[in-house]
């Protein structure tokens, strides 16, 4: 599948944004992170900023972005529509939570309720994003039980590292948050390795035989209907990643999981300014690593239409 940069950035940024929003909503709403104006303002601006930037970026790959509002209408059948509805609906409790927790400096009571609602909205939106991919049968690497949990784990992981970086920067570092971020990173690493292991051993029942209805023997493409690459090949026949996939997978592991994990351990051992620097660097490196991971997620996925072209 062609990895459109707008969609790669969109899924990575909103994943991190909703992860951070959900953590702030739960921990801040329940008073586990004490309301503090600047910390709250930066945290909410960061999470809502990532979400808004991601959503805006996602309209970048539309052919007719001026009609994007229509995408809220088909939530009964379409995961993409559900994602849009959930994404926009989440802004309401998130905004109220921002008013209560950041501007009014409150936690508990109604602030806890809207905080939990914002967290739930974030989880639902990330689930919908994951299901857009997990529901596509023609792409076996996506249509698997690994896809939806991956989106949730990566959202919690990138959001957790952002929260840890935020708290450390404001001198409000919490061992529990750091430990949680580290555990989420290790869980994400394990899940990604398991996903690759699964995908590399996939036995896809759809073949050139079933695609053409020609039973038995071999079906070899001897002539395409066109001489140049068409929309199908440009969008669905992307092949560059398969050439470099081993290298890109190593890059993902180093940037998104290994280095952030080491930096988090360092942050645990060091005093304030260094712990903050290590935590922020970990979050940044992981975001960059997740962009590579998401690029690979698209680029390594193989669509059944490529069978018609002998690819």
């Amino acid at each position, binding site marked *: 599948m062609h990895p459109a940069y707008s969609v790669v950035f969109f899924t990575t940024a909103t994943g991190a944004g909703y992860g951070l929003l959900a953590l702030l909503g739960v921990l801040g709403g329940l008073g586990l992170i004490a309301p503090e104006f600047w910390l709250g303002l930066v945290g909410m601006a960061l999470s809502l900023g990532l979400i808004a930037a991601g959503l805006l970026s996602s309209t970048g790959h539309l*052919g*007719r972005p001026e009609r994007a509002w229509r995408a809220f209408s088909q939530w009964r059948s379409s995961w993409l529509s559900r994602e849009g509805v959930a994404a926009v609906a989440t802004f309401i409790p998130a905004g109220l939570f921002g008013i209560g927790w950041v501007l009014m400096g409150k936690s508990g009571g109604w602030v806890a309720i809207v905080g939990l609602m914002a967290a739930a909205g974030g989880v639902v939106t990330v689930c919908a994003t994951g299901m857009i991919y997990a529901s596509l049968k023609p792409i076996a690497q996506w249509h698997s039980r690994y896809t939806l949990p991956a989106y949730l784990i990566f959202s919690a992981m990138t959001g957790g590292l952002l929260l840890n970086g935020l708290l450390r920067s404001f001198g409000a570092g919490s061992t529990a948050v750091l430990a949680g971020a580290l555990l989420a990173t290790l869980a994400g690493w394990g899940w990604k390795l398991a996903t690759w292991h699964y995908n590399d051993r996939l036995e896809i029942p759809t073949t050139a035989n*079933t695609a053409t209805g020609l039973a038995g023997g071999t079906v070899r493409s001897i002539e395409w209907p066109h001489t140049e690459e068409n929309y199908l090949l440009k969008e669905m026949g992307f092949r560059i990643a398969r050439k470099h996939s081993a290298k890109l997978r190593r890059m993902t592991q180093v940037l998104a999981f290994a280095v952030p994990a080491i930096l988090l351990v360092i942050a645990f051992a060091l005093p304030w300014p260094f712990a903050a620097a290590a935590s922020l660097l970990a979050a940044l490196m992981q975001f960059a690593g997740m962009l590579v991971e998401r690029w690979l997620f698209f680029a390594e996925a193989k669509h059944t239409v490529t069978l018609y072209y002998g690819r």
Partner: protein
Amino acid sequence: MTCLPAQTEKKLGLVIDLDTCVGCQACVTACKEWNTGGHMAPLTDIDPYGGRVDGVWFNRVHSYEHTTEQGGRTVNFPRSCLHCERPACVTVCPTGASYKRASDGIVLVDENKCIGCKLCSWACPYGAREFDMDVGVMKKCTLCVDRIYNDNLATEDRVPACVAACPTSARHFGDLGDPASAISHLVEERGGVELMPELGYQPTNKYLPPRARTERAAKVDAPALEPIRADGGFLGWIDRMLSN
């Protein structure tokens, strides 16, 4: 709505005979010619006379070599929308632009609602949908809705353009939901198959596999070619002179 109709009154579709298709591309050009002025017009061409030709087509003919124990043969394979009974291209559509008609089962795109998110083309395993980069919307085969119900055409012309154009009658049009229709009989007689049945899209269009080989054909042994050897002597000299 992009929810699917529980059932459709008719299941209009095509049956394509892989035994008789000669890969002449007449259906491809007839489709392009009709539809670039039809319901989903235009079928944009990008750089049509340049080195990077691209454009929207609803029908593409591939050629394959099918090799089995009985030997190999060339199979020409027209590929277009199969108007599935469970079309995920419709249900994934976030705007309601894609829909399946309850009356005849035809899958269509409302160009005025399409936002060009391309998700429907990802959801189609058959590559039936092609994005029009110029207009910014998705396009697909309409089963020539603007021909098959067109009172301005003679009755015999009220078939999809690809069917009308096929010189070997490899393409058939009709109601596959009616077991008594000629096209349903054809499918039954020839053992018509669905493409990628394992994905569960339940395509309406069916493909008739090539007929089994027979040993009835006459053996035609070509005579051995004469050796090409330069003649010597007077005639050889004349041959060389006249060849100059």
